[in-house]
């Protein structure tokens, strides 16, 4: 659940970037870190291996400014994508208010996307989360690669996006779709907060 401070009128939400290894989760955070003014973001923390693969998580706190009179902050996390790090992935996912599923658009990586999506669903169910209503956004990354190597957003939607949640094509290395993905995910998380608090 988002942490809401009624006294200081602050909301803090946790958004997790999920997906298979090398799909571009860390690249998303690095792009955001590079584009957002220093006054609006904290230090980016990366717990990585020597090969620069995420070992535990990347973390980037972001100040979204005032929304409905509340100072709104998002804590962005990535999980390690490699199958080997299943245990740490579960830990990072704990307490998440929303997930961005970063899928690798390359056709040869399709099975890994599917496996990661199943892993996400299993972990959410284990944590007692209702996956039918949980804020989830798909990002189909690496859409800049040659068309013969990748699947189209429509094909990926058909194969992965069973719930029909928002999905966005992206080239995270150059920033295409990164902002749009973040906007879509933060809106879903805040919509859910508004619905829950108003019901």
């Amino acid at each position, binding site marked *: 659940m988002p942490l809401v401070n009624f*006294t*200081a009128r602050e909301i803090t939400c946790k958004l997790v970037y999920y997906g298979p290894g090398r799909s571009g989760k860390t690249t998303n955070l690095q792009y955001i870190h590079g584009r957002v003014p220093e006054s609006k973001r904290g*230090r980016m923390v990366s717990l990585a291996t020597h090969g620069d693969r995420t070992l535990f998580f990347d*973390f980037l706190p972001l*100040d979204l400014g005032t929304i*409905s009179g509340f100072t709104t902050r998002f804590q962005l996390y990535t999980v390690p994508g490699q199958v080997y790090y299943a245990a740490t992935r579960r830990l990072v996912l704990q307490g998440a208010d929303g997930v961005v599923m970063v899928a690798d658009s390359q056709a040869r990586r399709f099975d890994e996307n599917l496996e990661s999506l199943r892993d996400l669903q299993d972990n959410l169910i284990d944590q007692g989360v209702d996956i039918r209503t949980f804020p989830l956004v798909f990002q189909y990354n690496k859409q800049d690669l040659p068309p013969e190597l990748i699947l189209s957003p429509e094909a990926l939607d058909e194969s992965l996006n069973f719930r029909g949640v928002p999905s966005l094509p992206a080239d995270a290395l150059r920033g295409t779709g990164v902002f749009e993905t973040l906007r879509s995910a*933060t*809106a879903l998380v805040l919509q859910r907060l508004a619905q829950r608090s108003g019901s």
Partner: protein
Amino acid sequence: MRAIEPWVEAPLDAFLRESSARIVLLMTSSGQVVAQHGFTRSLDVMAAAALGAGIIASTAEIARVMSLPTLGNVVHQGAGLSVLLAPFSMPAGTWVALVVFGPETTVGLVQLFCAGLAADLTAAAPQPRPAAPILAEQFEDELNASLRTLFGR
């Protein structure tokens, strides 16, 4: 000191006075900051909370994987300053205290007062309040404006 809710302040104030700790950070088990004393830049507090919660979560998971009873506090003893990470139960779930202390006190005393802090916070915690509307229906315009400002577009 800065606390999310005012009822946290008195127990934390007493803990700081008694333990001689230099920096204290209270967080939820998912790394959300509840209160802090001694940090100079608010956003760095969040990084410390994320890392502290990660250590406690991984320690608990190691215990589970190895079929050990729940592991307790984690202490990192430094040459000058040391760090204690202490998880404790609250009515709303597990919280974690990250305490930085120097040679003017001892790890035993800090742990003792930390247990007292947990008891005082539990006693001071208010009953869960009924849900009230938080965000206005039309918050998305403000969200979009904020994000446009952040990304300069």
